[in-house]
């Protein structure tokens, strides 16, 4: 499948329709805005990755010998803030969602193209503030910026908070645009039950972005008010309640994990259906499990606070609710696996990432249940077990999904084919590097190594596992660099991509690669069900291209 080549003559598309910096910076084309986001988040990914590298190098030896303790605090703070707010949250929605959702539903653009551009500018303003924060010394509060420390630290917390505040509005606007677009802009015949699961996942993500993000914005403002005006909100000395901060923070930040993982689940549904050549098993269950995750995700936040001093009764309720959110996640995993059953499986690079996703997300999800259990949580809270768990979800899950999606839709985005052999190799390197980095951290945490420690010379027995983790991070770094190299290489030297190189279902494959500015030359009408691979692969049916 991956060797399909076609002679494609140069057609007018969104990339060559106009040239010049102005045509990009003032564009309202969702595809160009997606590329602006792609470049921006890649920049922040490598900054966040650089911080990770320094963290892992420091932990190579038990003694704190590479950086000072204060610097180490800043390293893990800026790593977390950059990766969460400036890479993971916008990654799939703002790049792949922006690029694909209008095409997948048969629309010319998003409902509010100018708001879409505004969202990118807000992201850039937030990003510039974050860069200013980093260049002037950085913050040391941890990405969770808990009070009372964040209310008194002398480092650049205000700048970091402001950066996250502004970037949050970018996220809200993207979510708003997706909700309105999915409701209002679907092509004739594109009913809710025919929507690709990628769109369902983004719809659920958008609900979280709309309902959750304002809460973190308000929380940041409250911390700022306490710092500057000395209002008693979180500080007990002033009559405040420090746990109120954690409630507000996690009300957004736990669902924020689903902002990262749900879009990746959408990608995986598309990839698995295509490379197993089957309709997704239990389409409706997978679709509604996205909505269930979005709703249940708002009911579990206090499992981050079990040892913080919250009421035991409340902790019991949140523990039970946390188990409940595992159900819709398991529905997805079981349905993907059932889709593979008797499928005609192709082991192309996007599918390797999808397999990686399923395995790593399952490990991350199951260890989440460990943390939902009150007794175990007390033992492993604030240890490397937690670090390993959320990296399995946010890196093993979300980043694998992002990379799988980038490979799957790269021919559509760029009009070029990437080198399949290198892509498979990169997928394997990422999988091996990831596990070598983070699996030892489960053991370290269970044995009692606390997170955020710069020096562990009083427990030198942990060095072996830390060395393994650092070695894995190096391999993982190579695995992440490789796709960037061959994607860039393919822009110049790659074979031209046919409109539908994977013979995939979905409206986005029925237009040119790269697509024209308004996506389709004529308005598409949908007369088929989602993932109609049985019809596509039936030899007697010749599909007519839509809009060409």
């Amino acid at each position, binding site marked *: 499948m991956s060797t399909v080549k076609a002679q494609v003559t140069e057609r007018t598309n969104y990339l060559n329709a106009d040239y010049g910096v102005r045509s990009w910076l003032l564009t309202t084309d969702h595809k160009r805005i997606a590329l602006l986001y792609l470049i921006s988040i890649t920049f922040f990914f490598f900054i966040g990755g650089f911080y990770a590298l320094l963290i892992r190098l420091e932990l190579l030896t038990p003694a704190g010998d590479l950086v000072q303790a204060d610097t180490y605090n800043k390293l893990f703070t800026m790593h977390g803030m950059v990766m969460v707010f400036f890479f993971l949250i916008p990654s799939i929605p703002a790049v792949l969602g922006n690029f694909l959702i209008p095409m997948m539903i048969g629309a010319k653009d998003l409902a509010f193209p100018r708001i879409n551009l505004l969202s990118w500018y807000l992201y850039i303003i937030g990003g510039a503030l974050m860069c200013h924060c980093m260049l002037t010394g950085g913050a040391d509060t941890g990405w969770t910026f808990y009070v009372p420390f964040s209310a008194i630290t002398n480092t650049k917390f205000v700048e970091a908070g402001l950066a996250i505040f502004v970037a949050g509005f970018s996220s809200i606007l993207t979510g708003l645009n997706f909700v309105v677009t999915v*409701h209002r802009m679907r092509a004739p015949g594109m009913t809710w039950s025919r929507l690709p699961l990628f769109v369902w996942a983004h719809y659920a993500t958008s*609900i979280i972005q709309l*309902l959750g993000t304002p*809460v973190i914005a308000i929380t940041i403002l409250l911390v700022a008010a306490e710092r500057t005006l000395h209002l008693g909100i979180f500080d007990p000395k002033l009559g405040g*309640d420090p*746990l*109120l901060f954690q*409630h*507000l923070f996690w*009300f957004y930040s736990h669902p924020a994990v689903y902002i990262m993982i749900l879009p990746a689940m959408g990608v995986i549904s598309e990839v698995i259906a295509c490379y197993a050549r089957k309709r997704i098993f239990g389409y409706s269950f997978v679709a509604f499990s996205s909505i269930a995750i979005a709703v249940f995700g*708002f*009911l579990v*936040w*206090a499992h981050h*606070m079990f040892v913080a*001093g*919250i*009421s*035991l*009764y*409340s902790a019991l*309720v*949140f523990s039970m609710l946390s188990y409940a959110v595992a159900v819709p996640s398991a529905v997805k995993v079981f349905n993907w696996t059932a889709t593979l059953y008797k499928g005609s499986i192709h082991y192309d690079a996007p599918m390797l990432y999808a397999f990686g996703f399923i395995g790593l997300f399952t490990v991350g999800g199951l260890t989440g249940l460990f943390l939902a259990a009150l007794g175990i949580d007390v033992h492993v809270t604030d240890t490397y077990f937690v670090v390993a768990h959320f990296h399995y979800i946010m890196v093993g899950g979300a980043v694998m999904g992002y990379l799988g999606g980038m490979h799957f839709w790269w021919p559509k985005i760029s009009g070029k084919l990437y080198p399949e052999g290198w892509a498979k190799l990169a997928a394997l390197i990422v999988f091996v590097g990831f596990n070598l980095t983070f699996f030892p951290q489960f053991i370290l945490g269970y044995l009692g190594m606390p997170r955020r420690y710069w020096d562990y010379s009083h427990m030198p027995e942990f060095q072996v596992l830390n060395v393994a983790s650092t070695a894995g991070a190096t391999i993982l770094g190579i695995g992440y660099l490789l796709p960037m190299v061959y994607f860039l290489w393919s822009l110049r030297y790659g074979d031209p991509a046919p409109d539908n190189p994977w013979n995939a279902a979905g409206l986005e494959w029925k237009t040119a690669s790269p697509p024209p500015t308004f996506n389709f030359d004529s308005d598409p009408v949908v007369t088929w069900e989602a993932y109609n691979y049985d019809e596509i692969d039936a030899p007697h049916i010749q599909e007519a291209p839509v809009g060409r």
Partner: protein
Amino acid sequence: MAGHATSLKTYFTIWIALLIFTGLTVFAARIDLGVYNAAVALTIASVKATLVALFFMHIRGTSERLTKLVVVSALFFLFLLLGLSMSDYLTRAWH
């Protein structure tokens, strides 16, 4: 917004009402109402937020079921935030 157009007069009336409520908040802040300080301030703020939502955000008079669903969802999630947070605050052993 055809169908539920709001007159300029209504907008000004609501604006004046919001200013009066703001004044009321400042006035109430100068009086020590003891445990009712926060309750009074939050009540005034809630009335103001309701006015903004009903008139400036055109919730009043909307016939769109989707708009109503959005309003109900937002209130439901606010209830979750407050309700579940209070489930902790009110049952703490050391409180």
